[in-house]
């Protein structure tokens, strides 16, 4: 059925967001260099911006692998439209290490120290969920860590080491 575009607001031509502290301006459209309104944030991070640290497993919001921080809160980048991120600040796993010195975030170092992974595919999501928790609550108890990580699945069962790694950072920061 034909629709009258009378009150329809034309879509914004650009979407501006901050990714890992860097301002990014993306053009919306259907050309190869542009982003489509149907692109997810996970797709844009990986395919447009080349930030392949964020992984995609189920692409359906069920596994937590694609977790990134949006304005400090953990969200699923596979269930977020890039065009709806206008004005937001996104931090992916690449944004945790110190940009100047390259020094890893305490969480990243702790994951290495505790060997908190096997295949490592879920690790970026695990670290981002844990980071979101520690930003809100720097000294969580064990149950709070389990709760915060309840949306991140690991098929290698690294959860025990992950819990120890996060608790170690919480202890240091406490």
């Amino acid at each position, binding site marked *: *059925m034909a*629709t*009258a*575009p*009378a*009150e*329809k*607001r034309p*879509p*914004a031509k650009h979407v501006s967001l901050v990714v890992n502290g860097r301002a990014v301006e993306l053009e919306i459209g*259907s050309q190869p260099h542009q982003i*489509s*309104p*149907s692109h*997810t944030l996970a797709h844009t991070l990986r395919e447009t911006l080349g930030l392949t640290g964020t992984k995609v497993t189920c*692409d*359906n*919001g*069920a596994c*937590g692998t694609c*977790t990134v921080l949006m304005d400090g*809160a*953990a*969200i*699923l980048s*596979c*269930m*977020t*439209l890039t*065009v*709806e991120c206008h004005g937001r600040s996104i931090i992916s796993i690449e944004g945790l290490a110190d940009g100047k010195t390259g020094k890893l975030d305490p969480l990243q170092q702790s994951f290495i120290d505790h060997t908190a992974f096997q295949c490592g595919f879920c690790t970026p999501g695990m670290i981002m*969920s844990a980071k*979101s928790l520690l930003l809100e609550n720097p000294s969580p108890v064990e149950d709070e860590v389990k*709760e*915060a990580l*309840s*949306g991140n699945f690991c098929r290698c069962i690294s959860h025990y080491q992950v819990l120890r790694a996060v608790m170690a950072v919480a202890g240091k920061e406490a």
Partner: protein
Amino acid sequence: MRPFTHINARTVKQAVTALAQQNGAARLNAGGTDLFGLLKDEYLPAYPDMIVNIKTIAGLNYIKEDKNFLRIGALTRLADISKSSLLRQRYAVLADAAHSVATPQIRNVATLGGNLCQDVRCCYYRYPRHIGGPIQCARKGSGACLAVTGDNRNHAILGGKRCFAVCPSDTAVALTLYDARLLVVGPGGERQIAVGDFYTPLKNGLRSDEMVREIQIPRLPEVPQQTFLKFTLRKPIDFAVVSVAALVSQATGICTEARIALGAVAPGIVRADAAEKFLRGRPLTAETAAQAAELALADARPLSRNAYKINIATALVTRALLGQKECEIPPDEVKAYNPTELSTFHRCSSSTPPGYATVVESGTATP
């Protein structure tokens, strides 16, 4: 995902105008966690032409109490609801129900309005297009409900009619308990719908050009004993097999008020009127709670493979009335419980093609 037109609505009026202009081909997007299932799996015959972002509408994210109502904006995130101290103190069932939804990442974006308006989780209805779907069914307007003769472990034991998919919303259970209503806006103006009347077997009560603006809970005169229980096969990111909310006020050992709401057992949320009436004026004991639970499930008519839900619901109603928070049920307490069937339940409902859905596999539940 296939392309679509995307607009940002600045006001509720803009959003419903866009819906009306698109005549059913537009979808609202708030948290997106349910909508993306449709966009990615394309389980409906028609793909939306337009997505209307409503997160850009200011002023719909609030929890406030006035003289008559507790009012919650439709765009209030589940994370805010589960952490709200006002709700924790006075409307704990709603806070618990919101907290029981999915995962922290999803609760950080999912909204109360979206949780109430989400589509059903029936494995036939949501069967993905790219692996041999979509499957036609009564809910999609052609054919019969496949769950009646197929895998119906996840389906209704009460009130199913043409479609036996259950209402998946946890917050709707809490809101039905509180006799809450929805303030719905369409092109012609506003109207109110009780949450208890919102869900019907084939669809929810929202017309294609309407959106929920506010959820209104009549103020509770006091803080009663209230409990929300949700039985799932795994703790995070799972939909309820059965969920129950109960509220009891007592004076001198006698129930002055009793309310029971059951979720995931019917196309809508069920208030157990007979059981509530039975409890009012009686003392609340383990015995009367068990009797009330029997009454609450007296009308249940299970399908071929979901009689176990009656046992789980009965146990949860009894416990919720008594204020017990324990959700786990040992297998020997559930008469019709078949551990092999339950262990393969979520595999059948997510990715096994329907031809295999009735095959009982051996093996144990994934921890």
